[in-house]
């Protein structure tokens, strides 16, 4: 019951948090900013609209948003928000989840290529490239998690007495992983400094340019999918910072969403004080995250010996 509730809450609040980022950015710019619920309004507006399809597109283009949204929702099904056991879990589910999200990326990319637009092709190529690097970084982190706690599932990482935390032996290494994961979060969810969601020039975009031709409910599905994906990564970071499982479920949830909000504030601050990297520096950026994770893994060997 708790699990269903926590999943439902996550689905409900996913569009809330990006509003926080906008607020933080507005604060830094000295503006009032859009209302906190802006993303809900956007979703409702998009769902009411009709469709426009390019004559170049085929069935693949329509499948894209569906698969993207479905894969993002699937990731949330397995996540133990605030240490509350998730709806589903099994040994090895993280591998499945990251591959399922890979399927989402696959369809996102081919849907973009389906439009025959040179700009969308460019965005697709970047997405595919940076995705491969981010995946390597994530799997390196999974190696560390397995060595710390012998588990291969999100529920195993974050629930129960064996949960990963900074107080465990070799827990200090989590610091490296948190930084690395935050960097991957920014890259995978197309935030500054990898991609600028607020830019106006198609040549410099990654994610936004791929969805240029989607419209109406299709666009709503993609947007909702990306909110869910961002929530997934932000929750991951929050749970690594502090495991909340020792509190009661209600308090844990409250504290957990507070921590998630802090992660979003951190994203907002990053976006406000940093500029987007030059495209040829992005691989270096993601590689840094991979190296951090690899450092942590090697150090875990040194410490445990």
């Amino acid at each position, binding site marked *: 019951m708790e699990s269903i509730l926590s999943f439902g809450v996550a689905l409900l609040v996913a569009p809330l948090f990006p509003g926080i980022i906008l607020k933080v950015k507005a604060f830094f710019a000295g503006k009032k900013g859009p209302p906190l619920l802006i993303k809900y309004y956007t979703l409702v507006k998009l769902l009411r609209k009709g469709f426009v399809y390019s004559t170049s597109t*085929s069935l693949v283009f329509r499948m894209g948003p569906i698969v993207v949204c479905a894969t993002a929702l699937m990731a949330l099904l397995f996540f133990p928000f605030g240490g509350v056991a998730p709806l589903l879990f099994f040994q090895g589910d993280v591998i499945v989840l990251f591959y*399922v999200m890979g399927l989402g990326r696959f369809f996102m990319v081919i849907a973009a*290529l389906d439009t025959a637009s040179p700009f969308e092709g460019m965005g697709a190529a970047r997405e595919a490239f940076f995705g491969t690097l981010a995946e390597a970084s994530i799997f390196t982190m999974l190696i560390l998690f397995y060595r710390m706690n012998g588990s291969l599932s999100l529920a195993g990482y974050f629930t129960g007495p064996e949960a990963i935390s900074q107080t465990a032996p070799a827990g200090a290494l989590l610091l490296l992983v948190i930084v690395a994961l935050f960097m991957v979060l920014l890259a995978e969810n197309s935030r500054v400094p990898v991609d600028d969601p607020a830019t106006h020039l198609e040549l410099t975009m990654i994610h936004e340019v791929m969805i240029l031709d989607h419209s109406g409910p299709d666009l709503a599905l993609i947007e909702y999918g990306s909110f869910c994906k961002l929530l997934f990564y932000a929750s991951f970071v929050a749970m690594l910072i502090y495991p909340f499982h020792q509190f009661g479920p209600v308090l844990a949830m409250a504290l957990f969403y507070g921590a998630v909000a802090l992660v979003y504030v951190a994203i907002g601050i990053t976006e406000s004080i940093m500029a987007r990297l030059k495209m040829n520096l992005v691989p270096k950026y993601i590689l840094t995250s991979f190296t951090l994770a690899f450092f942590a893994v090697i150090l875990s060997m040194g410490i445990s010996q």
Partner: protein
Amino acid sequence: MNYFFAALGLVLTGGVAALIFHRQFLFAKGFSLLLTVAGCALGLASLALPSDGPAADWSLTWLQIFPLSCSVDSLSAFFLVPIFLICPLAAVYNIGYQDDAGASLKTMVGVFFLNLLLVAMALVVVAGNLLTLLLAWEVMSLSSFFLVLYDFKKETTRKAAYLYLVFSQAGVLLISAAFAIIFGSTGSFLFAGAATLPADIKLLVFFLACAGFGSKAGVFPLHIWLPHAHPAAPSHISAVLSGVMIKMGIYGIVRTYLLLGSQDPLIGQAVLVLGMASGVLGVLYALGKHDIKRLLAYHSVENIGIIMIGLGLGMLGATLGNPVMAGFGFAGGLLHVFNHSIFKSLLFMGAGAVVKATGLLHVDDLGGLIKQMPVTGRSFIAGSVSISGLPPGNGFISEFLIYFAAFHGLSETGANLILVMLAIISLAVIGGLAAACFTKVVGIVFLGEPRHEELRSVGEAGSWMSLPMLLLASFCLVIGVFPEPFINAVFRTVAQMVPALTVDHVLVATVGTNLAWASRLLLLMVLLIMAVRKAFSLRKEVARGPTWGCGFTRPTVRMQYSGTSYALSIVSFYRPFARIRTIWSGIDTIFPKQAAYASRVDDIAEIALHRFLVSPVAFVLGKLRWIQHGHIQLYIGYIIGTIAVLLLIFFL
């Protein structure tokens, strides 16, 4: 074994009948297809029979001195399944693919050699002693050589076939050397003798055999023939070569490993390292290639790499006494052998359909084909999802098993731990790059707008060609969504193959069930979202218009992102391993007229082979030219001289 040999007899008769009746084109095609399919069905059925299935054997002494024997154990049975499954589908495909009655004899020669190849491959896996294995191996190599040579009128084909012949003969030489060591120290052709060798000799035998079999399998750096031979051969042949024949190399490596029974961790480590190198570099070069069939050939190198990673983890786990790692490693590797045979032949058939319809092979010439060829396009996408290792395709199931093995290997220490870690990271890199590569192929070839006007008028492949593709595509999904029986079967094979290994049955069953449910849940989610989208699209207007050109009002199809530009940034990231050569005419005036740009990615193995082996050897041999005079008497003199010297050495 009677049914089994009857099945092979039927297949061989089908091949001979095709040659005999080649003047009646349709009859010959139909009759030989019937015999081939019947033979393969009988062969598959015979695996299930207790009298013919595992543990059956047969032997004969040929010319009084050469003992030949065949026996089927669980490993052979496992490798027989793709042989009997893919080859008949390729034969069916061929009916539609080569429908030119004018080239009847050529087609029928192709059919004959294909059937011969099938028989030879079946004999390779059931061979019960060293001699039988070598003989069958040689028949297999030669028949496949003639298949590669099919389009013998083209210069490139002849070169590719020659290259293949060199590699396969060099491979046979190495295998013979390995077997000769076994024969020399035991005095018999029996497989069983290998287990009694001293430990360091075992290592030598394994590495010789591994190089020999590896050159057939396409293990880096012995893969060079693959990307040349596959584009040269007709597509159904490529499907069989890449889907089935190169797996014989894997069979050879596994068989040698099992026969030697060596406990040296070096074997597992070497196989693992070779696997990682083949996997990562294979997919990297695949990204850099833009000829569809050459690209698919490099993907074979990549998948052989994944298989070797699995097997290497298995071998390492068996040596270190880690049953979960060993069991899942072997199982993942073997299951990937089966899975790869399905999706790789599917992809080659899809490429063949594209080539037949358009006559073009370079991805940057194609585009938008899914509208004209919906069946080919969709089954190609299914194959692409599977080969990228994404759920719900079958490739994911085997890759998951390998990941599972690798993560359980993280409890080891020292160099083994680092290797296992690198294995996980390279699997992740391979997965990402493979997905990038297949988004490129699917997106550039099948989606978007056609890059030539003629492409708008091509038609769908005929039903003889689409039927096998549809069947294979549905196999991909069925294995992905109902993986339990396949996982259980492959674990049964592993259990019989390495009896010392005890893998927890409950664990295997749980992993199978979990994977099955995860795939089904994914499909359910997709259906759910589809329903939601349907609900929101009721009574909505659907407008159609051109793609948004970002303010540019006169886009042309030539402005689409090309495969070259799609892949170049990724390949250049790995530049030390892939040499990129670009030809760029440059722009020198203010109003440039015409500019040209071309880039190609070179394989470092090819460069190194040319620089460090071929050139020095050619140089040394060039110095020996003076021996060659062209007088027959002189050559007879050489022969006499050689015999005399050998006799002297022998008697002194």
